C-alpha cells in the first residue's frame, strides 16, 4: 500500500504499526454486573515517518479511542502497537516513560489540555521536565520551539490564559515539539479554531512536518483539511476501519457507503456555499 501513496519517496520506514487493536469500555453499576461496550475492534494500519494518516468518521466511531490507545493514554484490550520496533501495547507505565517522548498528542480543546495559569514556558517545558532535562536545556529548547511555531520568545513568561485560542493551540504544538517526537497525534486539533486561524495552523503543521520528518496521525471530521494534509485516508465506522487508501483516490472513488456519505455531505456543504452566494464578483 505504501508504494502507491503519492510522495512516498519522501517517506521513510514504517514508524507506527497497529495490528488488531481492540478496546472496550465497561459501563458498570456500583452493585452488580457490568456491561462491556465495544469502542474499537480489530483496527489495523501503518504510518511511515514523514507520512500523514487521517482517521475520519462520524462522532462515536472510535477515532479518539484509537488515538488515545496509540498515545497510551489508555490501555488497549488486545492487539499490538509497534512504535519504532517496540510493542507498546502491553508495556507498564514505567517502561513506557522513555518511549513517551517519541509520540506527542495535541488535543482539540486548549482550555482543558493546558493549565491556564501556567506560563507558556512552564507549559512547554513540562514534558522536558518529565524526561529529566536540565534547566538551561529546557530554556533553550523552549525558546527555539516558540519561534518555530511563530510566537515571540518574549511571551514565554505570559500565562496561557492571556493567549488567544489560535495562539494557545500553537503553544500546544510547541509543547509537543519540545521532545522532538517522531510522531504527532492530532485529535481534532484544529476543530475549535476559526477559519483563518485553522489555515495558519495547518500551514504551520505542514511546514513542521517537512522540516522534521514527523509522522502525523490526524483525526478530524473536516474533510477539506484532510484532503490537504493526509497521504492516507482511513474511514472508521462503529469501531472498525471500513475503508483505507491514498487520500486522493478515496476521495475520487469511495467504495464504502459510510465514506460516500461523508464525502457527499461535505460536498453538499461546499456546493451550498457557492449556490447560496452565486458566482463571485
Amino acid at each position: 500500500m505504501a508504494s502507491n501513496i503519492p510522495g512516498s519517496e519522501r517517506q521513510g520506514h514504517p514508524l507506527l504499526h497497529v495490528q488488531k487493536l481492540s478496546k472496550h469500555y465497561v459501563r458498570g453499576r456500583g452493585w452488580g454486573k457490568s456491561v462491556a461496550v465495544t469502542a474499537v475492534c480489530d483496527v489495523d494500519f501503518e504510518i511511515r515517518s514523514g507520512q500523514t494518516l487521517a482517521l475520519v468518521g462520524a462522532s462515536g466511531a472510535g477515532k479518539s479511542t484509537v488515538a488515545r490507545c496509540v498515545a497510551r493514554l489508555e490501555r488497549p484490550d488486545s492487539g499490538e502497537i509497534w512504535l519504532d520496533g517496540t510493542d507498546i501495547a502491553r508495556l507498564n507505565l514505567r517502561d513506557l516513560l522513555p518511549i513517551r517522548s517519541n509520540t506527542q498528542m495535541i488535543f482539540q480543546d486548549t482550555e482543558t489540555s493546558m493549565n491556564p495559569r501556567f506560563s507558556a514556558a512552564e507549559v512547554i517545558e513540562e514534558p522536558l521536565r518529565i524526561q529529566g532535562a536540565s534547566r538551561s536545556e529546557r530554556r533553550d529548547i523552549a525558546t527555539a520551539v516558540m519561534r518555530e511555531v511563530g510566537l515571540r520568545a518574549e511571551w514565554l513568561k505570559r500565562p496561557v490564559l492571556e493567549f488567544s485560542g489560535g495562539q494557545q493551540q500553537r503553544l500546544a504544538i510547541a509543547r509537543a515539539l519540545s521532545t522532538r517526537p517522531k510522531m504527532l497525534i492530532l485529535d481534532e486539533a484544529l476543530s475549535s479554531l476559526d477559519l483563518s486561524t485553522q489555515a495558519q495552523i495547518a500551514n504551520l503543521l505542514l511546514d513542521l512536518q517537512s522540516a522534521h520528518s514527523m509522522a502525523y496521525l490526524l483525526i478530524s471530521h473536516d474533510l477539506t483539511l484532510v484532503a490537504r494534509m493526509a497521504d492516507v485516508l482511513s474511514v472508521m465506522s462503529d469501531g472498525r476501519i471500513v475503508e483505507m487508501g491514498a487520500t486522493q483516490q478515496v476521495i475520487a472513488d469511495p467504495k464504502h457507503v459510510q465514506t460516500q456519505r461523508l464525502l457527499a455531505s461535505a460536498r453538499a456543504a461546499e456546493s451550498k456555499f457557492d449556490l447560496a452566494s452565486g458566482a463571485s464578483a
Partner: protein
Amino acid sequence: MQTSGDSFLQIRGLRVTYCPSRGDDVRALNGIRLEIRRSEILGILGESGCGKSTLAHAILGLLPPHARIGAGEVFWQGRDLLRFPESELRTIRGRKISLVSQQPALSLNPVMCVGNQVGEVLRAHVPSTSRERKERVCELLREVGFEQPTTIYDAYPHQLSGGQRQRVVIAQSVACRPALLIADEPTSKVDGLLRSEIVGLLSKLRERYGTTIVVITHDPTLCATFADRVALMYAGRIVELGNSAEVFARPLHPYTRALVALVRSSTIAGPSTREHFPRIEGESPDPTAVSIGCSFEPGCAERMEVCALRCPEDVAPEPTRSVNCFKYGE
C-alpha cells in the same frame, strides 16, 4: 431568502470592556449597532476574539462581574434590557430569550440525569406537575431527534456522545418556546452529518414556531446556507451587514472578501496533498491595544491613508446592506 418581520430587538451603540484585576483592559465591543428582525435567522460571523460571544452575553445580562458596559442600549419590547434588574432578567432567560452556549459537554450538570436537566428549565418558568414535566421533556427530546426519549431521560451527560449532548442542550433552550434563540457556535465541534441535523432542527423551529434565531459562528458556510442575513464582526465592530446571499456573492468589506476567498479555496477535490492553505494576512488584532484608525487596517489589502487616522462609520451603499469602511464613503 426572504426576511420577514418587524424589528424585534435593537442594539444601539453598545460598548463593553473587560477590566480584569490583573492585566490590561480588553475592549470587547466597540459600538455595536444591530437590529434583529422577528422570525429571521441572523448569522453573526467572526473569528475568535471578535466579541460575538460577548454580544450574546450582554443581551441577557450574563457578562462576568469584571465586564463594564460603557454605553449603549438593547431595546426589546420597548424597554432597555441592560437596565433590567436581575430578578426580571431571570424570567426572560430561558423563557423569552434563550442562549445555547458553546461546549455542550461542559454545559450540563454531571450529576443530574439529562431529562431532569431539561425539566428544570420547565420548572423554573412554567407551573406544572412533575408528571406533566416528564411528558413534556420526552416530547422535547423526541423533537430534537432522540428516538428513545425515555431511555435518554435517565442518562447522565457522560454517557452520551457529543452530538447527543448538543441536542439535549438545544432541548433545554427551546423548552419554553422562547421567541429568540441565540446559538453560540452550535456546530463548531461536530462532524458534517450531525451538523446538518442540528441545522435542520433549528430551521424546523423557525418554521413551526416562528422563533427568531441568531447563530454565532466562525463558519461562513453555515451562514451562507442557513442564515437569512449575516453580520460580520471584526475587533468588536460590525464591519458588514446584509442578506447573506448578497454578502457572500458580492462581498464589500476587504475582510469579507478575504474570508470568502479562503472559503472558496477550501474544497475537497482540487488541492493536492500537502498544498498549503491561502491565508488572511496579519495576526488577529490585539484587543488591549487602542487603535485610532480602522482595526482591520494593518492586514487590509486595500487600505488607504485615511484608514489609519480615523475610524470609519457605517455606510449603506445599497438599501439592504451596510459596510463599515472608508472605501464606500465617509
